């Protein structure tokens, strides 16, 4: 069953065409890496999936139904920065998701409901290894810990799809490797569909079960915005996948130094 279907999607800003002719079926439970050069519309594509922007043409279907054109709890998101709320402690950052869910007017839980929500939040914090920092404010956390928190927060509402916008781009290599292990574990345990935009080709191949590259295939030298980016590569990265990745040695852990420049990038 495909979780997300994209039918002939176009995104235009006035004269400028950002994305064109995008047709994709994304299976539920997959881990999709989205790569491409800067300005190829990766982040725009993610914003379309989030509902932050609307496509100029075409449709996005989530579980067969048209996507609601605004962000909602069926799609979780982790951005590179600003993903956590600076005015809430680590625990409250996760707790607030449950408060949004169960308390429409006050957005605040009391008594037993609050204790239950705190227990659930603590469970999530434990999964990402932040239980010892539950009463700190995000400003006291390192970049990696802030992203851990953002992930725990994003998983609180059990989203159908988890969108990651260069989530590890600002982290140092060691922290990044830890985060890869963490996100792989969480993805396996909760079975959500993950779509990750990244600049890091190694990360894209190391984590993904499928890699999608966006790029412009046509270029008008007189009008740079005349043609948009579309899907140029769509690789199945599962070991038993039908499309072999030629000449590419897939490593389970990204820090083991998988060879990079295999011409898989246009």
């Amino acid at each position, binding site marked *: 069953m495909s979780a997300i279907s994209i039918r002939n999607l176009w995104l235009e800003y006035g004269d400028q065409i950002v994305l064109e002719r995008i047709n994709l079926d994304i299976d539920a439970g997959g881990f999709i890496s989205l790569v491409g050069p800067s300005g190829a519309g990766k982040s725009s594509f993610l914003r379309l999936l989030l509902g932050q922007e609307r496509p100029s043409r075409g449709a996005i279907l989530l579980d067969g139904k048209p996507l609601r054109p605004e962000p909602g709890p069926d799609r*979780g998101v982790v951005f590179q920065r600003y993903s956590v709320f600076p005015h809430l402690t680590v625990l409250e950052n996760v707790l607030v998701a449950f408060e949004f869910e169960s308390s*429409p007017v006050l957005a605040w839980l009391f008594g037993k409901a609050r204790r239950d929500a705190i227990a659930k939040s603590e469970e999530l914090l434990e999964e990402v290894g932040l239980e010892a920092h539950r009463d700190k404010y995000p400003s006291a956390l390192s970049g990696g810990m802030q992203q851990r928190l953002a992930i725990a927060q994003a998983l609180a*509402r059990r989203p159908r799809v988890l969108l990651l916008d260069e989530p590890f781009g600002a982290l140092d290599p060691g922290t990044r490797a830890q985060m890869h292990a963490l996100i792989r574990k969480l993805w396996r345990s909760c079975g959500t569909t993950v779509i990750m935009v990244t600049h890091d080709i190694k990360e894209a191949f190391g984590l993904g079960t499928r890699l999608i590259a966006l790029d412009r295939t046509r270029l008008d030298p007189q009008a740079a915005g005349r043609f948009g980016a579309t899907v140029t590569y769509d690789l199945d990265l599962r070991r038993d996948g039908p499309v072999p990745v030629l000449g590419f040695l897939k490593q389970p852990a990204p820090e083991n130094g998988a060879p990079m420049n295999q011409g898989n990038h246009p």
Partner: protein
Amino acid sequence: MNIVPGRGGRFLLALLPFVLILLVYMAGSAQRRAENPDDKLLPPFSEMAETAHRLAFEPDRRTEETVLWTDTGASLQRLALGLGIATLIGLVAGLSIGLLPAVGATFATLIAVISMIPPMAVLPILFIVFGLGELSKVVLIIFGVAPFLIRDLALAVGNLPAEQMVKAQSLGASTWQLAIRVVLPQIMPRLIEAVRLSLGPAFLFLISAEAIAADVGLGYRIFLMRRYLAMDVILPYVAWITLLAFVLDFALKQIAHRAYPWAYAQERR
């Protein structure tokens, strides 16, 4: 910029200019008194202390009220009402304008235009419409301060990262929930800072309004005493007003730092 005074050093350095100003005043006062024993311009501290004591602790012969406290009470009541209502308006309107594009498109320009009207220019209108009583003074403070608060808070809301808004919605927050749990607490420190900055203008409007039409109040007293060149009353009053403003400012700062510690985590000192 790398010579940083310690805690005690900073206190002494802060004290130094005050001491200098007082010394200069005392020297000037003594010199004028030496030339003319009836000089009214720079009364010595002993005389001011005497007058201040009389104003603060002895009831007025005519009204049987202690002048300083009735004046202070009346003025602070006007100030508190004006600033309080302006803060409430600023918070609600600023948040709505900053957060909701439709509200912003409707009212942002109006507020920008209103904030350009010099409040003192509409004071006659306020006197005509609301009479010479308390209401016109309170409305003047609101009129002078609220547009600034609205614009400042709308900007503060606009400066919150878009990622946070998307994130909150992806956690299931409705616009209302987002406003009260994500936006409101994050602009509260800015609101308090904006109110601190508005204390000066608020006092300005208060004292102007009292100077023009009042029968009690700090501004009224100062302008009344001007007719008698009673510097021994005016100077302690000015010092008292300054002290009130300073204490209010300090209290607001403390409240902001106590209630919103996360907002000051990144500050240099």
